[in-house]
């Protein structure tokens, strides 16, 4: 317990410097600014802003990135409540009751409930993260290459099992991502693979370029194709303060949502989507009057919003302790850390304690800033929502292009982004998801490295993966997940969930 305080005070001393506070603030502001734009979720937002953080020192860069993440998620909820346009799947649930509340003239209250619920969840999950990260990292130190390989298998499978449509297609996208991760110079032999003789490809394909092409450009082209969708924006915000009854109904839901979200967020595969759906189902089930759900019940907004924020926070646990990203956002984080020469994993805590604890404390600060920053600025976000798309998309294109160019100051990256834009557009038509690909792309080199090392240690015996108890357990868990999803009853339930989404 004492240790926890020591760690947190180290974190506070790092996070409370003027420099880091202002980067956290800037991150939250920029994240919200872009996240609030309809149809742009956290992944494209982070991908777009990522290159900007490369010029900063590592700690400041990651703090800003975390701020961008919360900001964009928060901005997404604002859009979901006011215009019923979810930027990402986990905000779909927010639309159900949040937008109804706005239609009932309680938009201000809905925004406050979402903000305060998220803040509470964020605080709780941050403490959880601080308390559980060190013991988990201890476990991770016992991991050999075989365990790491199995863990990555579990992580990748978990990611697609929990959060995507067609399972075989998602697995294919992962493998394709792994293969794209192979492009570039092989660390063991120094041979340049799949480079087609192009010198720029010898450093590998930057994941930010792929992310911007597949998420950013493809998204824009799809939005443009659906003529201009006129949306009704609720301007009448009403009071920002929830009334007594709303407060009474929301508070327990926040508590339950936080617990549920914290637990599910730790799972590989990042439970943000899962936890908001689960929380909504839970609230509806235990409510005395479930018929009010979908008509603007505060609990239907407060539960999922807190769950999703708690999960967003705890999904940092596998990343920071094991070095395994659970979802596409975390994959971007891994990429950012590698650029700063930090290998994500259990050693971060001991080798860069100031970065680790500073990041954790700044997460809490970021959550606080969002509440302080956003409630008074709601009027501004509403104005931003009214900017027509034809003005918006050239600006987004420009920012993507500038961001990509500034990675290496080389126009080649812009062309690669263009190519991935075309591929991403084709994939959206074929309903192939980009998120698993991104995870694979980031994990590819790590996975190959551990696979090779494990077999080197076992002298080429493939049984090493099942003979080591820890590795076997992880693989069995992955297998269990697959069987679970393939079983008819769950399959049906899953399909229902994904149908509801659309």
């Amino acid at each position, binding site marked *: 317990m004492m240790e926890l305080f020591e760690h947190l005070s180290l974190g506070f001393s790092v996070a409370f410097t003027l420099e880091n506070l202002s980067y956290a603030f800037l991150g939250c502001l920029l994240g919200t600014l872009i996240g609030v734009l309809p149809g742009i979720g956290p992944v494209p937002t982070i991908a777009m802003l990522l290159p900007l953080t490369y010029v900063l020192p590592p700690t400041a860069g990651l703090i800003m990135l975390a701020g961008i993440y919360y900001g964009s998620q928060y901005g997404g909820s604002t859009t979901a409540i006011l215009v019923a346009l979810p930027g990402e799947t986990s905000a779909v649930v927010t639309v159900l009751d949040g937008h109804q509340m706005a239609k009932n003239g309680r938009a201000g209250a809905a925004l406050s409930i979402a903000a305060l619920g998220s803040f509470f969840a964020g605080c709780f999950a941050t403490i959880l993260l601080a308390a559980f990260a060190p013991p988990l990292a201890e476990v991770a130190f016992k991991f050999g290459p075989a365990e790491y390989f199995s863990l990555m298998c579990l992580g990748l499978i978990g990611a697609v099992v929990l959060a995507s449509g067609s399972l*075989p297609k998602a697995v294919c996208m992962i493998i394709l991502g792994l293969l794209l991760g192979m492009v570039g110079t092989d660390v063991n032999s120094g*041979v340049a693979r799949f480079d087609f003789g192009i010198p720029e490809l010898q450093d590998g394909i930057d994941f930010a370029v792929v992310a911007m092409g597949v998420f950013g450009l493809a998204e824009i082209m799809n939005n*443009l194709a659906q003529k201009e969708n006129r949306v009704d924006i609720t301007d009448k915000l009403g009071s920002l303060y929830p009334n007594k009854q709303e407060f009474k109904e929301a508070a327990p839901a926040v508590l339950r949502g936080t617990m549920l979200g914290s637990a599910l967020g730790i799972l590989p595969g990042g439970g943000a989507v899962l936890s908001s759906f689960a929380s909504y189902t839970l609230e509806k089930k235990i409510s005395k009057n479930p018929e009010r759900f979908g008509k603007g019940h505060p609990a239907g907004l407060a539960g999922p919003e807190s769950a999703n924020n708690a999960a967003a926070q705890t999904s940092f646990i596998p990343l920071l302790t094991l070095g395994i990203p659970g979802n596409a956002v975390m994959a971007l984080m891994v990429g950012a850390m590698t650029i700063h020469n930090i290998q994500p994993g259990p050693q971060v805590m001991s080798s860069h304690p100031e970065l680790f604890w500073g990041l954790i404390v700044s997460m809490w600060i970021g959550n606080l800033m969002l509440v302080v920053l956003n409630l008074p600025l709601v009027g501004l976000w509403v104005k931003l929502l009214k900017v027509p798309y034809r003005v918006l998309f050239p*600006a987004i294109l420009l920012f993507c292009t500038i961001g990509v160019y500034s990675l290496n100051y080389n126009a080649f990256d812009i062309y690669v982004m263009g190519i991935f*834009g075309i591929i991403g557009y084709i994939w959206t038509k074929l309903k192939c998801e980009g998120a698993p690909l991104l995870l694979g792309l980031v994990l590819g080199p790590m996975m190959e490295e551990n696979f090779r090392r494990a077999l*080197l240690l076992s002298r080429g015996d493939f049984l090493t993966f099942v003979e080591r108890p820890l590795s076997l357990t992880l693989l069995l868990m992955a297998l269990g997940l697959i069987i679970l999803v393939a079983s008819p009853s769950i399959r049906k339930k899953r399909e229902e969930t994904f149908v509801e989404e659309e």
Partner: protein
Amino acid sequence: MHIKNQQDFWSGLMFIALGVGFALFSTSYDMGTPARMGPGYFPFWLGVVLALLGGVVTINSLRGKEGEDHHVGKFDFDILALIIGSIVVFGVMLDNLGLYISLVILVIFSSLASHEFSLKIAIGNAIFLVIFTWLAFVRGLGLIFPLWPVPIAEWPTYAMIIIPVSIIIGVIILISKLKGSK
């Protein structure tokens, strides 16, 4: 034989093609043995697995119920060409014409992809973005861009061809859009 799920059918074929492609390409690298893997080993087997799973996806697409939403959506080639084209051309122009001019051209040409194009708004937007980029990226973050045009004599040959041709194409589309809206 009848294809029940068009999307899955074509994705399956794509996965098979990519898997086979990567696997074949990997054979040109040293495979090594499991204990001492060469650079070709891991990608080769990943490619094989991808191709096999692609086969599963393809076969599955032939079964099951036929659904309306399983059709492959229509491709909007105009939008695709305008967006990707203006980005690629921006890449070529940036090193030769400098940030400001390339930026204006990118914004105006990409705006053509919208169903509600207005030259006035596009120009206004471009001016705003030039000021914003200068403030935020050039001054604020200190990113190093080529800002001003390089003399044409110093351009690489491909730029001398691509830049004028693409500008002419862009202007033609612009004029036809303006005429069409009247």
